[in-house]
């Protein structure tokens, strides 16, 4: 199919540039309700994503079309449709990247084994040969069973996926690249009980490597949270120091990433100025934020992006001041800056305060381990999120809380925050394990 598409692309007089991405995936999925199987699935899929560029009147139009298995008989019609779409779009010109030097990026779990005996068909191993995926998922099932039995909790549900993908990229600028990657994902709900009261703890973990998912440790920790949740009460209403840790803190960086993007700058939506504080005022916070597509086994790592730019690491904020934009080739050309490719994984320099010290204070400190949903507005930085589980800490007294909401603005809040010295890797985030915000508004009892 790919050869056929490329032949047609070269023949078409109105296709001036193109990129062709081929995505082949094999996935095995296991679903449990309680400890019983609800569903076992095997999936294979192949698709080609084609971007067509058409130059007209000094401008460039581009379109994105997807070619499926069933389109092989109508390929020419598809291409004509793509050309027509591109011909009516008018954007400033930009150039596709030329072949570069590509880093080796670790994104595949070689330990998974796979089925090396079976020949690949168009770079994938079709359905009957993915039994190895199934056996790994059944091993996960057994490991979960022994861990929860030990912790005294009950399994509500388990969903585990194992995916192997082969991605190829060819472009009219001479790029011809391939990568193989793996993704393992575990989604679980634990139930705790005390008399008639029952509570749950949901968690999800996605990593490139199986060894980066420490099921035993994750279940131990979440079982404790499930039991603590049984005793949780509403927090107080008022303004308090709030410590946010682990997965709960990752969304707080999304507005910084948005405002540091070439996209936001080009569209005049960025609030950042080069060399200026990103908090809107002077701050003691020394936030250093990097985007990386080369971090080993990062969920967002890749040796090349969708247009063929090499993977890289770029510092966008240094010591609390805006340093430079990250930008794909399109926005970089339009802004006249160096392209970096997509942001990738979030890398944050940790602080030098131990978590224990962050949790201390003269009055009440709240420690949030899970929000029901936290999605700060990327433009304004405003946020509000319900506390799914947290702790009220007052000297030596620690009591679990849930319900109520935490409200603020990430730019203001981060300016008055302290990062822990302990670091953590969360798949797409490497940085401090906890952050203390000095003053956030809590709506509770």
């Amino acid at each position: 199919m790919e050869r056929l598409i490329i032949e047609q692309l070269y023949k078409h007089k109105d296709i001036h540039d193109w990129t062709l991405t081929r995505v082949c995936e094999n996935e095995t999925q296991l679903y449990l309700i309680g400890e019983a199987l609800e569903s076992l699935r095997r999936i294979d899929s192949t698709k080609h994503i084609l971007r067509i560029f058409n130059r007209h009147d000094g401008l460039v139009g581009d379109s994105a079309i997807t070619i499926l298995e069933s389109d092989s008989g109508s390929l020419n019609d598809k291409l004509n449709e793509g050309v027509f779409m591109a011909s009516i779009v008018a954007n400033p010109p930009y150039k596709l990247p030329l072949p570069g030097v590509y880093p080796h990026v670790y994104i595949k779990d070689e330990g998974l084994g796979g089925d090396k005996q079976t020949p690949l068909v168009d770079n994938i191993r079709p359905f009957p040969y993915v039994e190895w995926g199934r056996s790994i998922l059944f091993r996960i099932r057994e490991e979960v069973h022994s861990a929860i039995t030990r912790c005294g909790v009950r399994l509500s549900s388990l969903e585990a996926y194992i995916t192997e993908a082969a991605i190829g990229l060819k472009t009219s600028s001479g790029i011809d690249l391939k990568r193989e990657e793996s993704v393992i994902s575990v989604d679980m709900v634990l139930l705790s009980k005390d008399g008639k009261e029952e509570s749950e703890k949901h968690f999800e973990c996605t990593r490139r490597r199986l060894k980066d998912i420490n099921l035993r440790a994750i279940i131990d920790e979440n079982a404790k949270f499930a039991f603590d949740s049984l005793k949780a009460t509403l927090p107080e209403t008022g303004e308090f120091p709030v410590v946010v840790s682990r997965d709960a803190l990752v969304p707080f960086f999304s507005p910084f990433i948005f405002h540091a993007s070439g996209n936001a700058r080009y569209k005049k939506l960025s609030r950042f100025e080069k060399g200026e504080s990103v908090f809107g005022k002077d701050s003691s916070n020394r936030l250093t934020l990097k985007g990386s597509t080369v971090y080993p086994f990062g969920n967002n790592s890749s040796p090349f992006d969708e247009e063929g730019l090499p993977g890289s690491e770029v510092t966008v904020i240094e010591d609390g001041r805006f340093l430079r934009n990250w930008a794909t080739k399109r926005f970089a050309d339009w802004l006249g800056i160096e392209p970096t490719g997509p942001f990738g994984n979030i890398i944050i320099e940790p602080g030098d305060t131990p978590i224990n010290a962050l949790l201390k204070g003269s009055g009440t400190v709240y420690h949030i381990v899970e929000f029901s949903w936290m999605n700060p507005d990327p433009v304004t930085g405003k946020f509000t999120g319900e506390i799914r589980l947290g702790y009220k800490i007052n000297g030596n007294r620690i009591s679990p809380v849930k319900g109520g909401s935490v409200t603020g603005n990430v730019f203001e809040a981060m300016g008055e925050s302290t990062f822990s010295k302990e670091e953590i890797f969360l798949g797409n985030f490497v940085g401090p394990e906890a952050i203390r915000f000095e003053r956030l508004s809590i709506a509770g009892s």
Partner: protein
Amino acid sequence: MNSSVKELLANIVSEMVKAQAGYPSASFSSKKGVRISKDDREERISHVPPEEGIVLRIVSMDKSRAGSLPYFEEVATSQLDKEILLKMASSLSKGLRRNVGGRPIEPDTSNSKKGEDFVTECKTPPSKVSLKEKVDYVRTLHAKLKASDRRIVNVNVNYSDTEEAYIFADKDTELKQNIILTSISFAIFVHEDGRTEYNWFNRTGTGGFELTNISDSEIEKTKDSSLQLLNAERLKPGSYDVITSPTVSGVIAHEAFGHGVEADMFLKDRARGKDYIGKPVASEIVNMCDDPSIPGAAGSYFFDHEGKLSEPTIIIKNGILDSGLTDLFSSISLGIRRSANGRRESFKRKVYVRMSNTFFERGKTPPEEMIREMEHGIYLEKCESGMEDPKGWGIQVTAHIGREIRNGKFTGRVYSPVGITGYVPDLLKSISQIGNDFELEGGGCGKGHKEYVRVSTGGPHLRMKARLG
């Protein structure tokens, strides 16, 4: 194409029946369409990311733990080659015949339909509107919005139309549906004195290009709200008298007793509602439904992804929790009514119990009267997000705009964002007035943090007491 696929699915099912597989079924899904976006500095046009694939499913028995229980075994593929699919069906059936002892999960298909084809009614099918006309429409709307105020720094307009085809076959059923979904939305970004704010408009529904008719007053209202947000304050946390607009009411319905009555959550012991069927959970004036058969609504379909024809489900009747939403697995496992709520995100994902169009039913009070009667409170509009907690009966809904009401009038003070949190029965029992209006808004819904399907939520204006922050 679709008629040959239909025949292919029937052949595959027939082969699996011959192989004595437990309740075999097959389905085909495809999604195709176009989307166009334009802001001040960029235009984009692309296909809606298409999906096309086939799922073969049979029932097997899990003998490894917790006794011998039925489960679904599925293979899904983007390959549409008949030989490959028949080979897959044969392999799937062979592998499982060893384990299956009877047919533990099998719906009653005696009233099933063969050969039924359904299609969304459109006044102007998107396929009859040229791509050029669609692009011109987006450009004209963008220009009109952009010219409406000097403080506007960017306007983002998004148009899409999608055709979802779905074919389902089991031994007694052959159904096909083509659903046309059209969506138009725009966001207006305004800037003044170093502050940037925005507001948006969205209309998504099953229907054609006629959905893109946006009135001048809808444009004015969206723009005015964007500008008012430049002076928005942070609301002092506390308990307030609240009036929710239909979009906020809808998200409360969706999060409170939409997710909370998805019966797979009953099976997983994740929903407290399981123990409250037949018991009061809301004010006695409250009625709530899920209905996939509403013409034009964004969450509508003719049959679900397991071949169950659409019909409404009453969730709350006069404040009493009446019934849950089910798919095939949960209805048979729990021995309760099967509703048409078995849906999958795409052929790559399994079927879950999912909502469709979920809403509070209309009441008797004109919204103007509700506002007039309020001494001090907050009017909430535009929903940013919501999150469910069926086990703890917590709720989180974030409104983009809160407007202060004093002595029956808007004071002009605006708050943003405003979060509602609380204990679901407390919130629903506090509902004291229900508007005589009704509106549904289309959007997407995840199960937890994944598995996105199109839905709509809505209802009338509601008056209640709520904790805001």
